[in-house]
């Protein structure tokens, strides 16, 4: 059975007008909501606090670095990795289910508008809100760090931070899209919230823990003698050339094991959008984030074009993920009937 089609002459403009009216109201609601300010506030506190521990490192000289801003930004990035998804979820979990629950959806849908207008308006507003919130709070965190720790910033730093903000907005929006999808078929916002946060916890924490479990389950326990020896040598600040009794073969065996573990767990974690985001931001700010944090140290920073090309797959996944869920939300919502 055919439904109204909105591509009538002049329909496009009218549709945009209605979607914009809804977007304007949604935007006003969002920026005046406690929820948004709470998340932005926690993010600021969280990121400024973590820049302190980084800058403390500078002062005692343990980690002398030529790029202090990059180090600072990487601690802001670790805060964003948690807060961006929560921001997306906060904006989306009751976007549709809340209107359904309160009966405002019926009032909206009895206007001469299309169901598409409702979801388009919400998406437009969410893009603006995630964009502004992440940009403003990241810039605020960066500025505060600059003032507090008295560091200088280069043009390259600025480009990295710009890219970081862009990817963070996409990441936040990915969670928005995911949670919007859940919201379109939930009749209760509380269900929608629990499901969305559950998925976030799974992607952010459980999957990475699970992945190392699975890897060990597949590979069996690490070669014991190599492990003991390795731990001994590690205690001497990673001086691999004084193995204290371990033969080069034993060390090689151990490193192979570690490599395999990280390969398997990386494959499993590839299902998590968080993983891809972290891959991109950690490349931008040049710390290597393996499952064991292995190999962290003085590496020269890759250039931006190099990062963009080596992380292309991660970037594509980061962008495709929200698109898939937006399309899914769109399909579920526009085909649903509301009594």
């Amino acid at each position: 059975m055919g439904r109204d089609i909105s591509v009538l002459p002049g329909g496009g403009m009218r549709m945009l007008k209605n979607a914009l009216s809804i977007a304007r109201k949604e935007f006003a609601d969002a920026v005046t909501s406690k929820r948004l300010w709470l998340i932005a506030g926690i993010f600021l506190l969280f990121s400024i606090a973590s820049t302190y521990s980084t800058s403390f490192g500078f002062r005692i000289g343990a980690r002398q670095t030529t790029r202090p801003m990059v180090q600072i930004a990487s601690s802001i990035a670790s805060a964003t990795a948690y807060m961006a998804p929560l921001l997306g979820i906060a904006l989306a979990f009751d976007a549709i289910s809340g209107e359904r629950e309160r009966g405002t959806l019926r009032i909206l849908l009895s206007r001469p508008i299309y169901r598409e207008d409702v979801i388009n308006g919400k998406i437009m507003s969410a893009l603006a809100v995630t964009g502004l919130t992440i940009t403003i709070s990241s810039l605020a965190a960066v500025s505060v760090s600059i003032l507090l720790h008295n560091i200088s910033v280069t043009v390259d730093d600025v480009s990295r931070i710009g890219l970081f903000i862009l990817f963070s907005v996409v990441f936040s929006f990915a969670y928005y899209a995911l949670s919007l999808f859940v919201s379109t078929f939930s009749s209760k916002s509380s269900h929608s919230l629990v499901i969305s946060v559950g998925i976030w916890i799974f992607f952010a924490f459980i999957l990475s823990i699970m992945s190392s479990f699975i890897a060990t389950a597949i590979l069996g326990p690490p070669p014991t003698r190599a492990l003991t020896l390795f731990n001994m040598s590690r205690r001497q600040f990673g001086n691999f050339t004084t193995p204290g009794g371990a033969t080069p073969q034993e060390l090689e065996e151990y490193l192979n094991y570690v490599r395999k573990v990280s390969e398997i767990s990386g494959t499993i974690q590839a299902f998590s959008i968080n993983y891809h985001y972290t891959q991109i931001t950690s490349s931008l700010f040049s710390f290597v984030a393996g499952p064991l944090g292995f190999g962290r140290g003085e590496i020269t920073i890759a250039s931006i074009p190099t990062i963009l090309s080596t992380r292309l797959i991660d970037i594509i996944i980061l962008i495709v993920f929200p698109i898939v869920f937006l399309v899914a939300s769109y399909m579920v919502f526009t085909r649903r009937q509301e009594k």
Partner: protein
Amino acid sequence: MGGGENMSLAVETEKLVKVYGNGKTMVKALDGIDMKVPKASVFGLFGPNGSGKTTLISILVGLLLPTSGSAKVLGFDVTRESVEIRRRVGLLPEGFGFYDHMTALENLVFLATLDGVPSSQREKRALEALEAVGLKDRADAKVSTFSRGMKQRLGVAQSLLKDPELLIFDEPTVGIDPEGAAEFRNLVRKMNRDGKTILLSTHLLYEVGMICTHAAIIREGRLLVQGSVDELYRSVREAKGFRYEIRVKPGSDMPLQEIRSIPSVIEIAQSDNRVTVLSKNDIGSILFSLVTKNPYKDIVESLTPVEPSWEEIYRFYQEGG
């Protein structure tokens, strides 16, 4: 209204069927509805809980799609042209709500925007609508501070914003106090005088029955009857008899032999100064000529046909006609 003529009908449905769910849990909420709502009528859709009123109304404005059959509202098809319908129809849905954090006026101005009211007129329209439902003095109060009845009134107000040709009210008087219900009836009468068609659903017959010019009675997804109120009265009378009430002067005795001798009279009841006559046929004119001559002339104060109550009509059809 003769019916049949498309131009004279605000709503016309044909073999409308709605089935909810699929597989195991199928519910046939509408089972072949042919409903005709004449233009400029006040049409009551009466039926018990779960009879399909809300389902039918939701299909008319395009919130739900029919499983089969078709329906036209103001000449537009409900599946293909529902936006055109919603441009011209004001709806008070069931179980609606407002944005609690916004004021009544802000809510209405926002909805007027989506109704396509030009920006220069939105506030004026919103205030007029609030005035019509007696909420003008609460225009700037947040909806979260409203009582249930006030929200219901606001619900009526939002349906007026686009100045619709047809108004559809689903259970309009639920939660409203008696004064509010009376005000609502006046509002409906006024809108009807202005030429608007009003379709309202309810199971509270006593609250809105008296303002209807037309009605349909629905049960388990089927229309048991529909037509003008006069037609409904007549068919109930024809089945259950015509009832007349004769009031006599206090203290006087009314001779009943002559009335009893009218062939179609079934039953005569007398109490105090009131005589009720039940007859198989319409004996209004016979009774009239009787009571205007002696000896009745001096005893009888009034003679009135007793119209069946809505409850009576409703029960009559719900019990199978």
